[in-house]
């Protein structure tokens, strides 16, 4: 891979992140209402002096530009995202940190399952075009692609949790349970099944449809005809000639979706009360916990940028044509 290509992509990512930091700062200063009011709520016995004291303590008495901006940039660069309004005495980094790994776990595994099943389904449908799997699979994929997560999640919850009683209705682990590590793992596993199914079902459709159309396009290329003319078997044509080329567009999709591993699908987490970043975002929104929201936004946008950067780099490795 050319050094120029790498440097260019890294530069673009750095500029994007800088812009995100800027927008993130402006966005939350453009919100109506004053933060000290949010901090204090509809509190009795409040005097103008107290309000002023709160403003000074949170640095809100200084002008937005340059003082607050410089303070924000300096703190963000050091990984200091401030204090949560809602969780008194806790930093944003602590609050987000507690909620990050459940989301990564849920969406990481959900993505993996969706990628494997989706790509396999798409490739098979494309290869056996017009067959039963293609006919049914494509229809199912379209339905799944268009179904919102919360609908899939709610259906799973109604049928398999509260209905049939096979799985727990909420959370990541049964609280107040005694038992060993194995019990704990089994418990987490049981809680894991429905949310992760909802996530994968929601994603499988995308991968299957993209893989199918991408494979069909590749199969119409001249070099496939050449391969056939050489007398290669169907399986070899698929694996050695068609699939590697057909996979290219899916790399982009995988990368974009991996960016959202961190974002999570808020609705899936809300439906299953999964203690991740999605439910945190909803809580922070309803409680107007701006510092936490600001932190979540920053994390999400940086994650998407980095995932796209990774996609660009992988693409460069896979396809020599883009390296120029």
């Amino acid at each position: 891979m050319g050094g120029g290509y790498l440097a260019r992509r890294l530069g673009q990512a750095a500029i994007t992140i800088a812009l995100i930091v800027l927008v993130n700062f402006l966005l939350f200063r453009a919100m109506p209402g004053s933060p000290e009011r949010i901090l204090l709520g509809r509190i009795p016995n409040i005097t103008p002096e107290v309000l002023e004291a709160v403003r000074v303590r949170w640095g809100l008495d200084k002008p937005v530009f340059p003082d607050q901006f410089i303070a924000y940039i300096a703190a963000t660069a050091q990984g200091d995202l401030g204090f949560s309004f809602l969780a008194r005495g806790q930093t944003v980094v602590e609050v987000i940190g507690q909620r990050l790994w459940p989301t990564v776990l849920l969406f990481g595994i959900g993505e993996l399952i969706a990628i494997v099943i989706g790509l396999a389904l798409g490739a098979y449908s494309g290869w056996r075009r017009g067959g039963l799997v293609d006919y049914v699979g494509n229809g199912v994929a379209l339905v799944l692609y268009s179904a919102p997560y919360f609908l899939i999640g709610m259906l799973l919850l109604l049928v398999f949790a509260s209905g049939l009683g096979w799985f727990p209705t909420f959370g990541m682990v049964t609280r107040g349970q005694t038992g060993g590590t194995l019990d704990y793992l089994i418990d987490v596993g049981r809680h894991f099944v429905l949310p992760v199914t909802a996530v994968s079902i929601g994603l499988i459709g995308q991968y299957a449809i993209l893989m199918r159309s991408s494979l069909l396009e590749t199969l119409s290329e001249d070099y496939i005809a050449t391969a056939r003319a050489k007398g290669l078997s169907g399986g070899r044509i698929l694996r050695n000639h068609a699939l590697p080329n057909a996979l290219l567009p899916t790399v982009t999709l995988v990368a974009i979706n991996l960016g959202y591993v961190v974002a999570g699908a808020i609705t899936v987490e809300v439906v299953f009360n999964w203690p991740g970043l999605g439910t945190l975002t909803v809580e922070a929104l309803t409680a107007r916990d701006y510092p936490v929201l600001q932190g979540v936004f920053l994390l999400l946008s940086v994650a998407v940028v980095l995932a796209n950067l990774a996609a660009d780099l992988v693409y460069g490795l896979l396809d020599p044509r883009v390296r120029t």
Partner: protein
Amino acid sequence: MRPSVRVRLTRLVGASALAGSLLLPAAAPVTAADPVVLRVGTVQDLQVLNPWFSVVVADYEVYTLNYDLLVGFDINLQPTAGFADRWESSPDGLTHTFHIREGMKWSDGQPATAEDARWTYQLVLDAAASEAGYIGSGYLEPYLTNAGLKSVSAPDDHTLVVTTEFPTTLITQAYVPILPKHIWSKYTLSQIGDSSAKGFFKNEPPVVGTGPYQAVEWQPGDFIRFTRNPNYWGTQGAADEVILQHFASADTMVQALKKGDVDYVRGVLPDQFAALQGEPDIKTVEGFANGYSELAINTRGKTQGAHGSTNALTDPAFRDALGYAVDQQKLVDATLAGHGVPGTTIVPPYHAKWHVDPTNPRHFDIDEAKRRLDAAGYPLDAQGRRLDKEGQPISLRLTWPDSEGSHATDAQFIAGWFKELGIDVQASVTEEGKLIDDLIPKEGKGPANFDMFIWGWVGDPDPHSLLYDLTTDAIGSLSDSFFSNDRYDELFKLQQRATDEAQRKTYMAEMQNIVYDQAPYIVLYYDSELHAYRTDRFANWVNQPPATGTPLFGFGPVGYTLLQAAAAVTPSPAASPAAASQPAGSPAASASGTQAPAATSSDNTLLLVAVVVIIVVVVGGVFAMRRRARDVEEE
């Protein structure tokens, strides 16, 4: 409006649940070693463990499990033993002596004495005297300052002496937790009461208190877990552990209740509430909320630095006429789906002892409203617009905080009714922080820039705080209508000092009528608290107060301490006579003798799922390897 899709889905699942319950293997028996866990679901999230920062109901629920109030509240909201087991007041009503029970211990084993109570009350006095004038979120110390707390002393370990500025019974109603001095006195006032101070005391678990259950584990945004306080002085109830579980979605919470993953839920949505009725082992309870939602009016209009649209707002006759154009029953039906009652006075019927019906009640009658507006000097012009006394067409802004989305429905109806009077209404939502800013009058260096808004208040065990909001003293802090009435202010002080209950009610009745007649607030409705609980694991759920309350989320931990194990969870039915004997007169449902099959899912199911997954993986793997092997042969 909510889509009807969910209703249909619910029915569908009802059928499949029935089918599923037949297929399921028998539930695994609960072993005696497992702690009995009470799981409580709420859509409201606990925000703090440091009680001084309590804002939402969940915060209060948590600290009254952890700590005792000096004087508790019994099931009828009457004073009962708390940190003190007896108390008396001097004949002049100014000196109050509390007797702290002997041998009481904190949950960590340290002795709990009058000195702890003295230290806690002194902290409040210090906070009130400090520059800020308050501590934490500022919601707790008014309980003592409004009661006129003057001094506090502990002459010995079992005696606490409190003096007040005036004779009062409010001192036994103080909703202030008694904290362990040996832990809290290590921190300064600002480390306790200011969350941005260096070394802020978060009061992380395990919490040390004298309450029946102590917080031992807290995942913010998720759950908080309590275990029995081994040193509790009273009876504790059947639960060994209590878990308050936060739900981001009320739908999920109700599904969890149906399945038995939680035992009690607070904050059920109206349509779910209807769907839960008739579910096996589930009982719904509709309690009055201790509060109200009101249409508040900027009674300063354009005067005194306020920025209302018209001075008609300052005229009680104008506001009273508007009251005839509000159909409260319609709002109850449309916004609350019938789960509430039309509003009248600012003391909700939850306070059965103090609430009065207005002497001159209004009724919904658009024509009557028009007649009253005409009579009060607000005629219609040629275009049918209502004019104020300056001859300008009256056009009013109506808003509500974005945190209370359901008020959008109220606002639409009210705007429609007022338009029939010839009053144009612009209804739009305001971000809550912005609205709070808009409501500040000149006393707080604010603009008072609004005409009308819809919001609500939540009360205490005593209606005192609800009455305070409309005093002249409250302008600049809690007052958001800037209502000022000399007689009301006088009566407020009289009721504060009244030690005779009947006399106090006379004062309060007159106060309620003044506000009703002068209409700075048009109380729209008293909404209901919709709760539901399972009866197959715990029995003896008792409402606090019995007629209008709910078993949990009342005042203090009494609902938790009365809980008994239902027959189904006891290891052996014979071993638990307590479960069989329900106290007479208890409103709680009786225990169910059988365990619902669907309530416990079996590990066999998991095994089955795991086996299926493994088979899929293995078969898939073998298939892929065979394909690969064939490829190699072809090379």
